């Protein structure tokens, strides 16, 4: 089973008197099928932590181990394939490629994971249909609503069939109805597919779908709170 294990993870920006610790000696384990919600005030280090979890930012010290692979010590050239193999990313701003249609946005992620041609097209169609976008395959991102864009982004995050999904404020740009829809979708990824989902957000509504809620403040987890039963919340 795929796991993420974080030990004494620290990220410090700057040096000497100007040094600022964004994340301080954080420990975290995420189990398969678990949804972990990390909340906290702005500037608390949530996104920095997410970037280190996703192999996009090297920690100052500590370790991030994904399926036995230590990310912090991995060579720079190995990081892109690690990301393509292990992670799916969901962004606050959706970050769909505006020049590509809906299907191509998902196919591109397949391509980056090594799946090309008809297999990539089939995979994209299958995922988008599953997320209720089967009739939007040839639409451009600017022809979609916010909720539809985020569903495309989730389909793209699943294109490489990743064991881990990292979501940065996935409901921030959505109205409440679409926000709830996306929250339920993220929950399903964990419950039905057994993926580990880590969400960084200010959105209290996401508490309902989380197995654990962590409060990050000044770079440290201040309290751990149990979440409602995720099954009943879906």
């Amino acid at each position: 089973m795929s796991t993420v294990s974080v030990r004494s993870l620290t990220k410090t920006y700057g040096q000497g008197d100007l040094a600022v610790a964004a994340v301080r000696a954080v420990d975290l384990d995420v189990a398969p099928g678990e949804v972990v919600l990390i909340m906290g005030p702005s500037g608390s280090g949530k996104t920095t932590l997410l970037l280190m979890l996703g192999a996009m930012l090297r920690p100052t010290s500590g370790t991030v181990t994904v399926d036995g692979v230590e990310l912090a010590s991995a060579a720079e050239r190995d990081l892109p394939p690690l990301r393509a193999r292990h992670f799916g990313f969901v962004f606050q701003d959706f970050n769909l490629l505006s020049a590509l249609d809906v299907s191509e946005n998902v196919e591109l992620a397949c391509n980056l994971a090594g799946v090309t041609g008809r297999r990539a097209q089939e995979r994209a169609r299958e995922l988008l249909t599953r997320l209720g976008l089967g009739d939007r395959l040839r639409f451009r991102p600017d022809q979609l609503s916010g909720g539809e864009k985020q569903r495309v982004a989730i389909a793209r995050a699943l294109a490489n069939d990743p064991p881990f999904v990292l979501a940065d404020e996935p409901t921030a740009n959505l109205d409440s109805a679409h926000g709830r829809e996306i929250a339920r979708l993220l929950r399903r990824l964990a419950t039905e597919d057994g993926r580990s989902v880590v969400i960084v957000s200010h959105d209290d509504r996401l508490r309902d779908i989380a197995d654990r809620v962590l409060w990050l403040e000044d770079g440290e987890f201040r309290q751990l709170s149990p979440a409602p039963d995720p099954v009943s919340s879906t």
Partner: protein
Amino acid sequence: MRGRVPLARRALFQDRRRAALAAGGVAAALLLVLLLQGIFDGAMRQATAYLRASPADVIVSQRDVRTMHMSVSALDPATDDAVRAVDGVAWAEGLRYTTTFLVGAGDRQQLSYVIGYDTATGRGGPRRLSAGRPPGPGEILVERIAADRLGLRLGDRVGVFGGTFRVSGLFHGGTTIANSAAFIRTEDFAAGTPSAYVLVGARPGVPAGDLARRVAAAVPGDTVQTTGRFAREEAALVRDMSADLMRIMSTIGLLIALAVIALTLFTLTLAKLREHAVVKALGGRTRRLAAVVLAEAAWSVALAVAVATAAAVVLGAVVGRVNPAVAVAVTPAGVVRVGLSALAVGAVGAIVPLRRVVAVDPASAFRRAS
């Protein structure tokens, strides 16, 4: 079937107006180079028209004279017979040759090479007449475009060598923006005028190169070249005359193309930096993004070369109609040359965007869009 999502093509043509402007800008610059090159290629073709049509295998000229254009050649009167006696020579014919002005209606003048040839064999004359007949005593063949310039028709009289000749026929090919050619009987050159060149035909089975070596041994004081070599020397002379101008204009054209390509790629890359970061975050390697930028450059260049080539062909035809003396020869080799130069320019134009793409931090995909 498509293998990978064509990211470069999609990005480049997402904004069709921008793509059209960019391709149009580069195409306009390349058109300048193509047209200029076409004009000089056309001039070269016209300058060698007589030689390319000649039945001769070998041409003898005065020592160190290797061309007809811009040249004066005078051979010893015994040269014709000496050449005829060489083993492997089927025939040898002396040409009289000089440069003078033809004076037409209303004192219009045309600089022209006047060639005196044996009208009985016709070997030294134009290959085909488009009107009239070979010249008799006191008659002349004039090139059609030159005849138009001079306001001449068959039967008109034209001033040559201080006297007048009657136009007995017209032929096509050989008039450039600078000069033309005309043909008269050998006997109509002043008595005692020596042959300027000797055209030599080989017996069947004798290669031109071999014949040239044999003739050279027989007339060691003269220059002997195969007709092919002679035509290449002629073309090289035209090329050398235009080389500096060509180089300057081509450099200007390519610099403009470089500026347009570089600006297009740079603005496109800047506009897509966040999307490049997203691709990196999703696991895209830097080399894939670099390939996207290079593919955008290649697409821009390919489109521009295609547009420029089509425009050059059309403009060449228009120029040829407006001024028949200017032949624009847009050749496949010329297009390939311009295309390769444009590709090199595209690669240079992609350097700065490439540096930006290489430096893109995948983490920037997580920054809030403004």
